[in-house]
């Protein structure tokens, strides 16, 4: 019977028992419980740190196991395909998460705001509720929520920092593709350089976004609380920035693995998974640049 469970690549590898998932469940619970405790003012903001650290520990442990199994050769082609499909569907779920916020932006901009301004059959909004409201985008609503003291605010022009950030992310999309080709061709030095360039560009993007946020908060009166414009702007760019940060950390991890000599020209799913993820944040950014900043 021992042979049935001995690692062999000719059948699908089914792991037998793992404590990492339960560590993951507990850590997610602790993060959520900590966030609840903070929001309900039961505890201070550090409350979700233990869970976050445990989650990081889980990622290291779980991926350590998987990388070990992968390098010992127990994964066959079919296992590899499961990982690939899993990653693709995960990215699809992320796309749908962003779709909710893009949907909110489109709905607010092309329906809710004009209706508040009295468009069509909603004419009584104009006549009775908010006669002075000018429903043009960008807006923080008839009550001029947030913004400067007089309720006004400015927005970030598309062709300044955002255009530069677009160039940075698009360039990083090219560098990671060069790195991928280098990996497939066995050119390890080129791989290391271009992969490093990719995450450097990623962190540069995040740094510039932080710079832009500070400018918006301090000088422009544009904050998360600045009506519907501030809400959609910061939630969309904020979640995107979070995903770029996560993606850049993933890039660092696979770069460290490259430095340790992992990945072969034929077998490098982790590299490709991260690359897909990176292209996904890239594409979301293009949507943001066009619909949030530009139009």
């Amino acid at each position, binding site marked *: 019977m021992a042979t*049935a469970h001995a690692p062999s690549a000719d059948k699908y590898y089914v792991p037998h028992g793992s404590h990492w*998932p339960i560590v993951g*469940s507990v850590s997610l619970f602790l993060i959520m419980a900590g966030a609840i405790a903070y929001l309900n003012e039961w505890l201070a903001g550090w409350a979700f740190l233990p869970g976050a650290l445990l989650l990081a520990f889980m990622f290291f442990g779980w991926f350590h196991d998987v990388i070990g199994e992968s390098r010992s050769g127990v994964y066959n082609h079919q296992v590899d395909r499961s990982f690939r499909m*899993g990653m693709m*569907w995960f990215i699809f779920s992320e796309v749908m998460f962003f779709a*909710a916020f893009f949907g909110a932006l489109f709905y*607010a901009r092309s329906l809710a705001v004009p209706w508040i301004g009295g468009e069509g059959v909603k004419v009584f909004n104009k006549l009775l509720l908010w006669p002075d409201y000018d429903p043009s985008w960008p807006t923080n609503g008839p009550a001029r929520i947030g913004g400067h003291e007089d309720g006004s605010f400015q927005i970030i022009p598309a062709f300044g920092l955002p255009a530069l950030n677009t160039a940075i992310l698009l360039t990083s999309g090219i560098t990671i593709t060069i790195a991928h080709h280098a990996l497939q061709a066995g050119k390890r030095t080129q791989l290391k350089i271009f992969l490093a360039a990719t995450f450097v560009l990623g962190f540069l993007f995040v740094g510039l976004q932080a710079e832009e946020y500070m400018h918006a908060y301090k000088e422009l009166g544009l904050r998360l609380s600045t009506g519907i414009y501030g809400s959609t702007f910061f939630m969309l760019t904020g979640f995107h920035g979070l995903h770029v940060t996560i993606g850049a950390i993933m890039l660092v991890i696979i770069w460290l693995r490259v430095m340790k000599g992992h990945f072969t020209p034929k077998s490098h799913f982790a590299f490709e998974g991260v690359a897909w993820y990176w292209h996904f944040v890239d594409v979301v950014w293009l949507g943001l640049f066009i619909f949030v900043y530009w139009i």
Partner: protein
Amino acid sequence: MATHAQAAAHDDHDHKPHGWRRWVFSTNHKDIGTMYLVFACTMFFVGGTMALVIRAELFQPGLQFVDPQFFNSMTAMHALVMIFGAIMPAWVGLANWMIPMQIGAPDMALPRLNNLSFWILPFAFTLLLGTLFVPGGAPAGGWTMYPPLALQGGDSFPMMIFAIHLMGASSILGAINVVVTIMNMRAPGMNLLKMPLFVWTWLITAYLLVAVMPVLAGAVTMLLTDHFFGTSFFAASGGGDPVMFQHIFWFFGHPEVYIMILPAFGVVSEIIPTFSRKPLFGYESMVYATAAIGFLSFIVWAHHMFTVGMPLAGQLFFMLATMLISVPTGVKIFNWCATMTRGSLSFEPPMLFALAFLFLFTIGGFSGLMLAIVPADFQYQDSYFVVAHFHYVLVPGSLFAIIGAVYYWLPKWVGRMYDQTLAKWHFWLSAIFVNVLFFPQHFLGLAGMPRRIPDYATQFADWNMVSSIGAFGFGFSQLLLPYIVIKCVKAGSKAADRPWDGAHGLEWELPSPAPFHSWETPPSAAIIARGAEH
């Protein structure tokens, strides 16, 4: 049968872990499936108890047992617990048990992820049920969490939001696993149009889950930031719109109701041919009808909100799109009837539940068609007619299919036959009381009784009393289910590998009980061919 012998040998010898580690560290699709089903059953009784609190209060007009705030908490929590804690985990449990066996796979594609998907749930429900004990009480604004009412929740508000985030994460990971398993783990020769319909319906369900659970996550995140961080998504003063929440929520919510019913279509499509001793009529049209329902589910969401003041064009579009759904659904009902036509029918417990499904789900479908008509819906909106409608599709719909599935596959799972006489008692009590419970609610709704109220005008007294009697009868009848299952596990008589003589499919080619690892070597083409006689 080399495969049988081999599989049986595995069962005896393999290192099945013992004690708590077997469950907490499990990567086995059957053990995880069992945990899902036990969890779902537990939550079913928790949610059922909440329903009985509601029906006890409504037994007579006036306020008897609970204060209105707690009554409202019960309606919101009953829905959240039943949807996310009972029906959905029950389906995932059945998927875990059956999909690898039905497609000839050794396990789910991503076994560790499978463990994570399950074990998130108990923690999520710790948070959700914990809301009952915090200042301000449990969420009382309905499971739909409409702002601005939901934003006025107390300490329970972020608990509800994060509980939903956890449930969503669990569902997404579980659904990814199902899709990957079906797309990548089929035995050679099991091509897509040979898959059993339970697998097909789950494939489309899983796709819907991956597509819409993140949208729910987005919606509740906006609620959270509106409450705590000053955003204006759902506040008109800042340029937002509370109705926008309803649009985003129901873009999730309508596919969600098909997530709960599509696997039921799959189960019924397995049970009816077995006990009609005929192949399923119109297999391919069933597949296409399921896909069509899945597609349509994305473009009908606003029929939940006809009265919010949508443009006329929007009302027309959503009314007509909704009515279109009755076409593929009608195809399914027709096919099930045609399968039974001139079949050699017998009425074991799974078949009884499938037949009740056929009749009673159809009633729910018809009332749904009534609700789809915009001008009529203006009258029905938020009345007990709506309550009757969705309980008809969820209780004798989804729930009966789940119970039918348990009675269908239980002998395969435990290798023992259950007490069929008792299961028939369970069926008849359920089938009678469910109608006593929900049918009068149609009358109440048409007469104008609103939903989610703890007290009502005296003209509604009689039917409320009838409905409450039905509720207690139905609720206590369900205690038979765990009793029958436990009795079967402990003392059932030995079940054959194919306990139903008309059953086809790969799961029946395995011994009973099914070995710990299902198909370590893929089934041969001959076995697949025998299994695939739809």
